[in-house]
């Protein structure tokens, strides 16, 4: 009989699970999306095969875990209990890895992380710079857990907070603890979760609902997906605790369609929690009953907005509704509904387990605890990082992220997704928390962090996000739909070298209008990418408009490719790779680019051998000037 009837049953099961785990060494293979894409499944199979071949099944096991975070080193394997961290593991490494276990031949040196600074190999996970500067409260367990095993979660202390709450705490004291911790919503706005819970708890109307928002859709963000996939029970436990505090008997988990792995993971978790009696009637004999339904998204970004999400669960089009009465009071089917995102719910068990004071010990005055970021873009160590609130942006990008690759210089970092903005190099010492990011004209958002180097054009960046929103806005209200439409048209013009004086002022006027007049948070924050790039990189916009120049060389209308005849060795690689036959070869064997035909794809630049470096990117204006000079009209061009 699996069903746990009392807290004592749970503790007995925990002791058994711990004993079972401690009986073996474990090879913890990351099977997060990044590692899977790099072949982690084959690595895990090879390790399994090697263990079987050697008959070591009683001493060594393979655990397929969720995302470890260090995507740059994918596929990753961590040895438990030594914490040896292997990077870029391939199936052929299975034998040497197993040779190196325990008192064997020692770790496989070539697979250990190489510190470029010191030239030394680093063995243990926690000593690698990427991990060393993190505070992995939520993500730490991802390495230790097979998400399809509730016993793994229980072995690392899982459902301990729930047992504590149900046996020792009243719903009021659970709520009080979360309020005292000042946990702020990790999904975007940073609204205090405790206050939201309290509103729902006190709002008239039954039943009350609790909801997990797993509709993470910001470009470059994969925090919630990785957490839900890697440690689904932590989210579930947080949700049950919330339901207990609020007085809800039913919960919903809204998972976006594009997260099949996370959905499968939470499905299995719910199934297991029911089997063990951690969901359902009379949980752990406390008299408290609660169950959960999964709702699958249908691919709309805007459905991550709370009222739109609730409309979608109700079976209607996922469109925001005016929220002058909050969803925490009148949400799903008009009933009080408390919605938090994945990370917020997953934080709750830690707060109940270790106490609000412990949580308040991390972070800044206004933002407590830790926050997960997905660090991507032009940064050496791409991955999932969890840090204490208030850590300087510089530490995340340079100490953890390892800085910008290929010797390029750092230009800006985009935070908060399409609702956020860019933060320039001058603000690198900004302490990262909800309020500071907002002050800088960006926002925490759900935690996407896209690093940009000198080869990034800020007009193009604003254009990318605006175009994303043009398709992801629901289109209901005039400020968002028409504001975005006109912003995009103006940005398209500027990028095409057709910008006009006055365009920037119109963009600013539109931005202000959209912020005040839009119906929901998506529209109110939609101008942020434009507003923040204008605030910090106005001169780049002006260069595009006044001089037809894109300094990053990104806006194709404003650049051209040329062949430097001094350097060209006439190898013909550019001509062979040109998809539109835009490279001519004269009778004398001289290669030139025919600008009328060129589509500026850059294939010639890539094809030209680095040792020649003859193909160069130049401002489009330079080409015009040159042809003018050639026909004797110097000084009159453009």
């Amino acid at each position, binding site marked *: 009989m699996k069903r746990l009837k009392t807290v004592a049953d749970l503790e007995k099961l925990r002791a058994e699970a711990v004993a079972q785990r401690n009986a073996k060494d474990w090879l913890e293979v990351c099977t997060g999306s990044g590692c899977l894409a790099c072949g982690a499944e084959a690595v895990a199979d090879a390790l399994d095969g090697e263990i079987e071949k050697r008959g070591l099944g009683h001493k060594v096991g393979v655990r397929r875990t969720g995302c470890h975070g260090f995507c740059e080193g994918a596929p990753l394997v961590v040895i438990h209990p030594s914490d040896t961290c292997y990077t870029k593991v391939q199936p052929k490494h299975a034998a040497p890895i197993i040779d190196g276990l325990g008192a064997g031949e020692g770790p496989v040196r070539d697979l250990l992380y190489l510190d470029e600074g010191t030239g030394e190999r680093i063995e243990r996970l926690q000593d690698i710079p990427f991990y060393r500067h993190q505070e992995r409260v939520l993500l730490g367990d991802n390495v230790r857990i097979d998400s399809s095993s509730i016993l793994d979660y229980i072995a690392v202390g899982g459902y301990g907070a729930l047992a504590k709450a149900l046996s020792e705490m009243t719903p009021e004291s659970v709520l009080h603890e979360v309020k005292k911790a000042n946990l702020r919503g990790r999904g975007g706005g940073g609204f205090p979760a405790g206050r939201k819970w309290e509103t729902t708890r006190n709002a008239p109307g039954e039943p009350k609902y609790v909801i997990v928002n797993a509709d993470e859709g910001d470009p470059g963000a994969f925090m919630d997906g990785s957490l839900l996939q890697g440690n689904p029970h932590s989210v579930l436990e947080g949700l049950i605790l919330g339901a207990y505090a609020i007085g809800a008997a039913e919960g919903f988990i809204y998972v976006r369609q594009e997260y099949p792995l996370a959905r499968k993971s939470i499905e299995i978790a719910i199934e297991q929690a029911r089997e063990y009696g951690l969901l359902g009637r009379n949980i752990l004999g406390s008299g408290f009953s609660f169950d959960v339904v999964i709702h699958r998204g249908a691919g709309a970004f805007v459905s991550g907005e709370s009222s739109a999400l609730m409309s979608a669960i109700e079976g209607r089009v996922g469109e925001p509704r005016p929220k002058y009465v909050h969803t925490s009071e009148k949400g799903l089917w008009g009933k009080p509904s408390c919605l938090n995102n994945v990370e917020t719910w997953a934080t709750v068990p830690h707060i109940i387990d270790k106490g609000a004071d412990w949580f308040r010990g991390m972070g800044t005055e206004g933002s407590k605890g830790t926050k997960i970021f997905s660090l991507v873009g032009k940064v050496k160590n791409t991955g999932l990082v969890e840090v204490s609130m208030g850590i300087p942006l510089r530490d995340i990008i340079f100490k953890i992220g390892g800085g910008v690759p290929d010797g390029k210089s750092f230009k800006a970092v985009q935070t908060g997704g399409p609702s956020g903005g860019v933060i320039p190099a001058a603000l690198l010492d900004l302490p990262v928390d909800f309020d500071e990011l907002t002050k800088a004209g960006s926002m925490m958002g759900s935690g996407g962090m896209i690093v940009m180097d000198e080869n990034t054009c800020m007009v193009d960046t604003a254009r990318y996000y605006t175009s994303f929103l043009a398709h992801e806005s629901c289109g209901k209200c005039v400020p968002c739909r028409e504001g*975005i439409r006109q912003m995009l048209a103006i940005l398209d013009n500027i990028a095409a070298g057709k910008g006009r004086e006055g365009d920037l002022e119109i963009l600013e006027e539109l931005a202000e*209008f959209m912020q005040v007049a839009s119906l929901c948070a998506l529209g109110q924050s939609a101008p942020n990418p434009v507003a923040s790039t204008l605030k910090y990189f106005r001169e780049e916009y002006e260069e595009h408009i006044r001089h037809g120049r894109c300094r990053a060389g990104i806006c194709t209308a404003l650049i051209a490719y040329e062949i430097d005849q001094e350097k060209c060795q006439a190898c013909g690689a550019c001509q062979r790779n040109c998809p539109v036959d835009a490279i001519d070869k004269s009778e004398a064997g001289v290669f030139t680019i025919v600008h009328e035909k060129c589509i500026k794809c850059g294939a010639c630049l890539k094809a030209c051998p680095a040792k020649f470096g003859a193909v160069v990117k130049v401002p489009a204006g330079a080409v015009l000037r040159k042809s003018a000079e050639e026909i004797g009209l110097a000084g009159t061009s453009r």
Partner: protein
Amino acid sequence: MDTIRLEIDGRAVEGAPGTTVLQAARSAGIEIPTLCDDDRLEPFGACRMCMVEIETAGGRKRVVASCVYPIEEGLRVWTKTETVVKIRKMVIELLWPSWQTYAEEYGVTSSRFQTGIADCSQCGRCLRYCAEIKKENRIYFKGRGVERRPALVEGAELSCRSCGECFTLCNSGWIASRY
């Protein structure tokens, strides 16, 4: 039922709980311009023409859509402040030239935007009427974002001509142009 007392443009106004600011203003003879509003239909809150400035009894100042904001005790409302006029002008300009009902009043004679909205202003009255009053649901919004458009449910062309009531609701003549 209790009566809620508030102040609109300096005048004392009363209303039953659940009344919107727009309804309360109208009952007191104060005009607020609207596009997507229709008193037979559920408030939609999309056009933002009816935005007004408010200050709650607790002293919180905001700009809100009056068609969906419920009245509350001690609320103070201003229906034609500088901020509100600026918003309305921008809405008219963004929808130019499809909808010009208030253009003269607000002094808008042209639009600075290059890609004008020539046909549907997407007030949604046609499809809301079809759903809420006629209970037919023959028209719906197709797509989202800048591509959103009202469209007939497939196969509805044959059966929906008989009513034609949406024709008269259409501000921009878009529906008529489809027949």
